[in-house]
Each structure stands twice: as C-alpha cells, then as structure tokens.
C-alpha cells in the first residue's frame, strides 16, 4: 500500500516533524510519496527528496498554499488521494487543523496522534491525556492518520527521490490569511529540542520568568517551555505551553521549575528521558515522574544551578 506523507515546513525549510512522520509512513508498507504544498518552497521540496524511502516528492507551488490554510490544502490533498491507500501527517498545529477536513471529505474516520503502527490497519494512540493507550483497528479502506512525532525516530536523509510539480489549483473563497505573529528568535524549537527548561506559576511575573530561565536555558542550549498557568498569567507565550492541550515534548532532559505536575502537564513531558523537578513542596506530583527532585526555593536554586553549569 502506498502512502502520501504530508510535509510540515515554513516554505523555507523542512520541519523535523516530517522526518519523524516519515518513519511512521515507512512502517505502513509499500513506500511513500511526500507532498510539499507551499509557495516558493522549492528548497523544501529538494530537502524532502532526501528523505530515505521517499518514492517521489509532489510539489504544489501556489500562493493559496503559502500559509497552509486548511480549506485549500485539504482540497489539494483530496484531489491527490485516489492514488494512495493512506495519508499521513505529523500532528503539528497545521495538520491537526487540516487533516480532519481531508478525512471528512473522504468519508474516513481519522486516527489522531498515533504512537505506534501495529499493522497496516491497527494503531496505538493515547487517550485521556496519555493516561491510557488504545489499540484501534480501522475498517476504512483509506487511512487518514496524524502522528505523534515524539514517538518516532527521524528518518534518515540520504535518499534521492525525484520532484514532480502538481498544479491542482484550489478555488478558495471561504478563508484567507490576514496576519501572523511568530515568535521566531534564536531559541531552539520546543518540539524538537534536546533539552527543555519549563517554568510554572511560581515565577510570579514575566520579568522573573525571563530573568531566571533565559540564562539557564542559554547555558544548556535549551528550549523554553511553560505550564498552562504560566502562559495564562502572561509569563510565557501560548506556543510554549507543554501538555495535553499544548505541545508534547520528549527531550533528553526536561527541567520543570515551580510546576506542580498536574496530569495535563505530565501528559506533555513524561516521556522525556531524564526529568528534573525543582519545587518547594516535597509532595508536589511532579516529583512522582522526576528522576531527580530538588526541594527548595527556585529563586535561590535556579541562579545557583545556572552558575554551577559553567
């Protein structure tokens, strides 16, 4: 069975999430093609052609795809779907947004956020904030799947697939892109970082959050994350939220500081290799998942830790 893998990118570079979803696509069976839908994303298509195992790259270059709006990209994918038995995308915000639209148009029940491919029609996925895992089998002939990228290794990039242009032009009168505010900056991407330093409500202000965590993250080459409480209070931007309803991360090292460890937060980080927690409350639930717990005041311990890392 052939799979169509949908690439995550920003028109400039291929996002690593694509490589991880590629590993899931490869496990489905008879190879996969990659779809790069964007505007002026030729470099991305060239990068996608290097994904090990890719049959070919379909490159749809159109202003309508520039911002990956769900309505036109879903129509594009549906127009290509006849040739494929499965459609797979990483569970990034773009594809969480667009793929269910594809599924409904194809009259298929999507399988969200899979963590394991058991066979061509059977998958494992988390429910209840990762407190249970379901093994589900689908009876749909065509499969539409999003992939939890932390559960799969990145595919190698030593391939050399051909790139083919697709010029299916969508007709979209119902939605348009208006603006965006992207954080950007030099900091490593939270979803793919090797080390994540996260702060919670205990910081008390945006100033303290930045003043204490930035130097620590800089020393560790880490991405910054936050609990929902810290985001709601305005200490950190929305896209830093780690958890059931934010980002799911699984870095080599996760440091949770002033975070109590609510199940919704644990859902987003408990698959990290090593977890460190710093909290004044020795009974805080975060310590139940921490490999190393340090009980004490973050306002003293964080600067101390930062200078100890010299």
């Amino acid at each position, binding site marked *: 069975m052939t799979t169509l893998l949908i690439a995550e990118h920003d028109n400039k570079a291929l996002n690593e999430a694509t490589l991880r979803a590629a590993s899931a696509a490869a496990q489905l069976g008879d190879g996969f093609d990659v779809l790069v839908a964007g505007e002026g994303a030729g470099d991305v298509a060239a990068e996608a052609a290097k994904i090990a195992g890719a049959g070919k790259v379909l490159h749809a270059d159109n202003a309508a795809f520039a*911002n990956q709006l*769900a*309505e036109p990209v*879903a129509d594009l994918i549906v127009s290509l779907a006849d040739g494929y038995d499965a459609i797979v995308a990483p569970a990034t*915000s773009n594809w*969480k*947004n*667009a*793929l*269910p*639209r594809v*599924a*409904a148009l194809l*009259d298929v*029940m*999507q*399988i*969200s956020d899979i963590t394991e491919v058991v066979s061509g029609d059977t998958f494992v996925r*988390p*429910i*209840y904030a*990762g*407190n*249970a*895992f*379901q*093994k*589900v*089998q*689908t*009876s*749909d002939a065509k499969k539409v799947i999003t992939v939890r990228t932390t559960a799969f290794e990145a595919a190698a990039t030593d391939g050399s697939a051909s790139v083919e242009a697709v010029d299916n032009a969508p007709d979209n009168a*119902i*939605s*348009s892109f*208006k603006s*965006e*505010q*992207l*954080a*950007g900056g030099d900091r490593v991407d939270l979803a793919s970082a090797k*080390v994540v330093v996260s702060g919670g409500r205990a910081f008390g202000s945006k100033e303290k959050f930045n003043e204490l965590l930035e130097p620590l993250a800089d020393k560790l080459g880490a991405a910054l994350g936050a609990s*929902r409480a810290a985001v*709601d209070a305005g200490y950190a931007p*929305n*896209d830093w939220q780690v958890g059931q*309803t934010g980002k799911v991360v699984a870095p080599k*090292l996760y440091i949770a500081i002033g975070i109590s460890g609510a199940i919704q937060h644990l859902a987003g980080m408990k698959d990290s*290799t*090593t*977890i460190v927690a710093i909290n004044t409350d*020795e009974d805080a639930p975060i*310590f*139940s*998942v921490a*490999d*190393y717990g*340090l009980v004490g005041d973050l306002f003293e*311990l964080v600067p101390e830790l930062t200078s*100890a890392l010299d």
Partner: protein
Amino acid sequence: MKILVPVKRVVDYNVKIRVKADGTGVDLANVKMSMNPFDEIAVEEALKLKEAGKAEEVIVVSIGPEKAQETLRTGLAMGADRGILIKTDETVEPLDVAKLLKAVVDEEQPKLVILGKQAIDDDANQTGQMLGALLGWGQGTFAYDVELSDDGVDVTREVDGGLQTVSLSLPAIITTDLRLNEPRYASLPNIMKAKKKPLDTKEPGDYGVEIKNRLTVLETTEPPKRAAGIKVGSVAELVDKLKNEAGAI
C-alpha cells in the same frame, strides 16, 4: 443570527482515570462527569457575542446518553437559550458526530458553530474541522481571539510558532483554545431558570444519520510507569548526577 454550540459530556478534568484490568476500556463507573472545558469556553464566547448584540440565539447541542442532559442544562444555566439532546448510548466517532451536527445545522441555519478544539477524553481534535468540511464552510480552529463583523469573522489562532489570524466568510466554524476567554460560573438563580428552558430530545434516526463506527478498540492499556526517582540534597549533587549518572548534560 443563531450560534450553535456542541457540548460534550466528559470525565471531569480533575479525575485521574483508571484503565480496567482486563484491557477493555477505561473505568467510568461513578466518576465525576462535566462539560468538556473547551466547550465551556465555546458557550462563553457565544454568550459574549449575544450580549454584544451580534447574535440573537445560542443553542447548545449534545450527542450522548440521557445524562448528557446535565451538560446541556449547564450550558443553559450559563445563559444559552435552548438545548438539543441527540440521544444515543452508542459510541459515536467524530465523523458521525460531525454528520449529526451537519443535520442540526441544516435545520437550524446558524451563522456560526463554535466547538471545543478537543474533547479531553478521546483527545481526537477532529469534530469541528470535519463539520467544516461537510458543510463547505471555512474554519478558525484553536481560537485565541474572535472578531465578528457583518460579513465575516476574523479568528486569531494559536499555532505552533505563535499566532495566526485568518478571515473567514460567514457562515463559519470556530474551535476554541484555552485563552479565548474565561467561562462564567452559572449562578444559582440561573441554574433554577435553566430547568425551565426548552430542551428537545431527538435520536440519530430523526436526522437520517446511521451511526456506523469505523474504529474497533482492540485493547486499552496503561502507559508504562516511570521508575521512581530520587531527591537530591543540593544543586551540586544534581549537577553531578546529571553529568555522571544520567549523562544528560
């Protein structure tokens, strides 16, 4: 204009669920159930639009067992005008939920449908987008801010890298994210009043939708538990362990 808000009855977010020992599912006997938190945010947004004079009627709809009435009453107590229960004891997958909601939309002709971005039990994050596809409407998912005008709606969305604003023509679909608003609590008088608000009970058959599940759950298991860790006494000990024991730095 009318606004339709689908609300789902789910296990309360404070409950730590348990997987049944025989692997057949999650033990839902006697656990506290509540309205899906994202749906409370959806009801709140609809009510704010009504209070701003931009909508006339807010209708809440739920698909589920008889008890889902309680969830609808919660929505009515918050301020929604009437409720529709589509009663079924079967499992309903998002695609069929979307088909049922489409039938309700065809009948009620709302200009906006505001849903939660995900239900916190199945975490599927699909229903709103599927409904958008079935209706051929635009979608503003993971909404952080909603600006409604006469001929369209601008939705600012929480995306991986920050925020994105899209303009949609009406009618449209919105799904809520956490920071869109803070849902109100229902006051006691409003809870009493809600008991008298109209609540229709229907069945999937009334809408000509046949529930046909595509997914079979073969097994439900608990995630592997992390081995218990240790408490360290000082920053120096922590750094030493991270370097020499875990190899993490």
